[in-house]
């Protein structure tokens, strides 16, 4: 049973990570809209809109991954 003394602190550590991740997710707005993300799977297309007025390229790649 001595294994408990390792595993439980480990679990508590993981808990701390989980709490941090949750708080981060809430803060970055991931829980604000739970509906439209599901749709993006069917809707999003690899092809970007071809017409762009001021510039040819889509803006920096950072716009989708945050």
């Amino acid at each position: 049973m001595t294994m408990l003394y390792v595993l439980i602190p480990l679990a508590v550590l993981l808990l701390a990570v989980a709490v941090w991740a949750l708080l981060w997710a809430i803060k970055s707005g991931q829980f604000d809209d739970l509906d439209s993300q599901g749709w993006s799977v069917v809707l999003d297309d690899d092809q970007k809109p071809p017409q762009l007025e001021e510039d040819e390229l889509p803006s920096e790649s950072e716009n989708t991954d945050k």
Partner: protein
Amino acid sequence: MNKNLQACFHCGEAVPSNCLLSVNVDGENQAVCCSGCEAVAKLILQSGQARYYQFRTENAVKPIDEDMDVEQAWQRFDQRQSLWGSELKDGHYELLLQVEGIRCAACAWLIRTQLESRKGVDQVQVDINNGFLRVNWRPELLHLSKIAAILASIGYRPHLPLAGAEAMGRQHERRGALKRVGVAGLGMMQVMMYAVALYAGEAQGISQGAERFLQWVSLIVTTPVLIYSGQIFYASAWRSIRSGRVGMDVPVALAISIAFIMSCVNFLSGHGHVYFDSVVMFIFFLSLGRYAELVIRHRNLQTGLALARLLPEWAELLTDENAERVPAIDLRSNDRVRVRAGQTFPADGYIIDGDTEVNEALLTGESRTVVKRRGEDVIAGSINQSQTVVVRVSRDPEDSTISMMGRMLLKSQTHRSRYAQLSDRYAGWFVSVVLTLAGLTAWWWMIHDASMAFPATLAVLVISCPCALSLATPAAIASASRALLERGVLLTRGTALEMMGGIDTIVFDKTGTLTTGQPTVVRTVLDPDRRGIDAAEALRIAALLEVDSSHPVAHAFVGIPVNRTDVCDVVNQAIGVQGRVGDIDYKLGNALFTKVKHDPMPGDEGALWLADQDGWIARFDLDDGLREDVASTIEGLERKGLDLVILSGDAPHAVAAIARRIGVYQWHAEQSPQMKMDYLAYLQTSGKKVLMVGDGINDALVLSVADVSMTVSGATELANSTADFILTGDSLSLVNDVFATAALTRRVIKQNLIWALAYNLLAIPFAAAGLIEPWMAAIGMSLSSLVVVLNSGRLARWNSIHSFPDTGTKSR
């Protein structure tokens, strides 16, 4: 309608037969109804976003012509830094925009992809429920006006974030509550696991070291949960104590504190039990309940936004030489503004030039127009139906009638939300009683047998865990609201179901609530001297003339099948319409417009006349159509002994007619929103509990002060934002269903409470006597919660099996 009429590819409205516009979708031509739809659809298709049409679940909103000059109009804001949103780092700003026309997830996708493909926009979040956009952008790369123009070009009308602070505050509140629930939930899972081990240890033995260790870990996990998630209970308890009341959070705060402190004392002293699990569980369930209520409340408390949407953003300000478009909030009293036909008045004022017809549904709930001449007052938010007029502003926008209404509304809503959390009041007081009992048990055993003191006290605390009690009401209400939703009733405030029991008076609005608010032809009278035209033909001609009219009266002829190509040269005017059918010019309108000379008869003030150059042909008597099942619903409610009252903004003769028709004896006509509110206050001070049923903007105030409020299908957004129940089905008989469900719900709640109390009353003495082991108590506690949940679940099933054949409250 004619079957060869096509629905517009973009907005789904009928395509006029003289419209030949179309867009090319996958090689096929699809008809669109107007150039606005054409432009928007073309843009969407060209951007490779045809999937929007495939996946949307709602039709798009028909674009308004005004959208076309959006960019120019917004340019004045490009340099106003205060409107760019809140500043983030590196020149990024977070802009909050309110957008009209977001209806489904496909809209959100369309907006996101369109905006995010622009340089200068980093991220876009769309809140579908509230119609908000959160744009992370860089003003130096993209102008604000450009963003507005992009939105308008794909058919979504942007609005200034007038209620931005309100929405931001709400989001902040919601995120905070969610964080507390999340932390408590995660903590609870852990502590419950340790608790299971500890209970098992009680039953079959556990080494001293392992027990201490598990208690240690429980303490380490519980403390942050208590501090982080439990803080709201302390804050609210402290607030209520400071203001001299014992609020319901006081026993909650007391319970978690005492349980926590006792656990710590026992833990440090090295003997006795810890109940950290009870602490986290209690915090978790309570904050979960609070969060659920918060979300529902926020979804419906869009009052400020709903109000802001009633007013136009822009006003046409007349200066000495020219006209200028300015934001309506910048208007000051004494300014002169021009308001064109079809536009909304931007401010309170009086007409200084021109005569027109105005729709004042805002004040009266009537869609029928009122004639306003020079010198007469108009109010912000009412709609100019017919002629361009010039208005002298008499009050600053902040002091306008509608702003005052908004302020009063918000006030009564904050007042009311204090009652919103009644649902865990039983639990709170119960906890105090339990704690007292636990204290007494501990004290008694300390005197008589110190070694028994801790286990007995623990058993009392565990066995009487308030779970079952705190679940008794929310579980029943959740089941009931699911059941109501199936029947077409949206419940927005849980306690309203409990309060339905005390209702003894129902106040109805007339137009739009009891009636459909849309005129129908009740009688067609033909000129006896004319031959050759029968009633059906007269109706057909009238329907042809009104076919493209947006005037409320046109609705009376909507159901009549006509072929649009049979009519031409239609001219819509303020007081009537004229056009050519076959070879004859016809006029349709009031007696003055059609130049009919007639002997006035009582009741024909609102009649429409059809005439050609030889004189009148037919007279149509119009009346509001009654909503479905009104008579039977009213009868059913009367049979229950409820007092029924009609309060209407309409003229006395119209109200009297409806009241007589449906058998309601008390009615009051020509009521302004303020008068309605005063009347309700009068009823309430004489001890009545009032259910208000309404639909209009003018009903919003009175709905917000009623004990329980209900809006019918087709109600205005503002009214819905203050309603406890929103009926989405057309039939008024849903009112009866709500009464029946509320009665059932109260019964189930009562059963739940009786069960939970009986269980506790039975078990606590045994526990206090030291006859129940803590692990038995834990099982008992879970079982009693389970019984409550299962019993509540019956509500949903009952509802689908029985269709409430009679509406009695005592049956079953």
